[in-house]
């Protein structure tokens, strides 16, 4: 009997990663971002003691988030264009 490990042939197409898959992923990420941001903003607004520090952290949070969302958006567009 042949050893299965030596007879292993990878399939030609197992999974197709099309640009719409990435678009859906980006959409889901955006929804999660909006939900978590709303919760975080509520907590910072309602329970934080040092509002000056919170303002700084809020700016850092949104700067980083939009940077990453923007990068993901560019990635999706470029990936779609490179088909």
């Amino acid at each position: 009997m042949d050893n299965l490990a030596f007879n292993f042939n990878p399939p030609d197409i197992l999974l197709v990663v099309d640009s719409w898959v990435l678009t859906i992923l980006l959409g889901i990420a955006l929804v999660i971002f909006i939900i978590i941001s709303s919760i975080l903003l509520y907590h910072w607004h309602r329970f934080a003691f040092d509002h000056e520090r919170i303002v700084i952290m809020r700016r850092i949070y949104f700067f980083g988030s939009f940077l990453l969302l923007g990068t993901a958006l560019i990635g999706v567009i470029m990936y779609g264009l490179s088909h």
Partner: protein
Amino acid sequence: MASPTSILEFEPDEKIIVKVRRHWFYFLKEVVTLLMVLLLPLILYIIAVMIGVDTYVHIPGDFFWLWITVAALWGLAWWLGFFVAWTDFYLDVLIVTDKRIFDIEQKGLFFRDSSSFRLDRIQDISIEIDGFLATLLGFGHIHIQTAGEKREFVATFIPHPHELMSLISQYTDRAVENPIAEQKNGL
């Protein structure tokens, strides 16, 4: 705007002596764990290139841009996780007033626990500095024994615990020496 001090019910003449958060080392431990998770897309990219991912997965576009998108989304998830962890850390506060100690603990995003006890109920305070890092960085746990239902209160990862203990002892002594005035003020 609602301030957290308005959420806590202070007595009219009650003064906040100090607000204490956990030592930054407590947060650092969580950040280190999160940083390891952040490296995952890079490791997956290396593995994908090594095994020849296009043999198993059909990628109609440029693999580089696919990786950029996935890494950015992963980074976003990490970024959100970091700020949730930071909020959890930042909203945990121990407030010592001239009458009471308030302990506010944020557990995740949907659970918040707050408790308080009067200084004149304190029977014993002790601190525990456990290990090399705790000694070097100056943090420890404070154990407070009280007369009441919740007999022991423990505040963990407190920076400069000796100073906080002496401050609490000082105000506890005042509260015990002058219980009538304290009760009057408490009404």
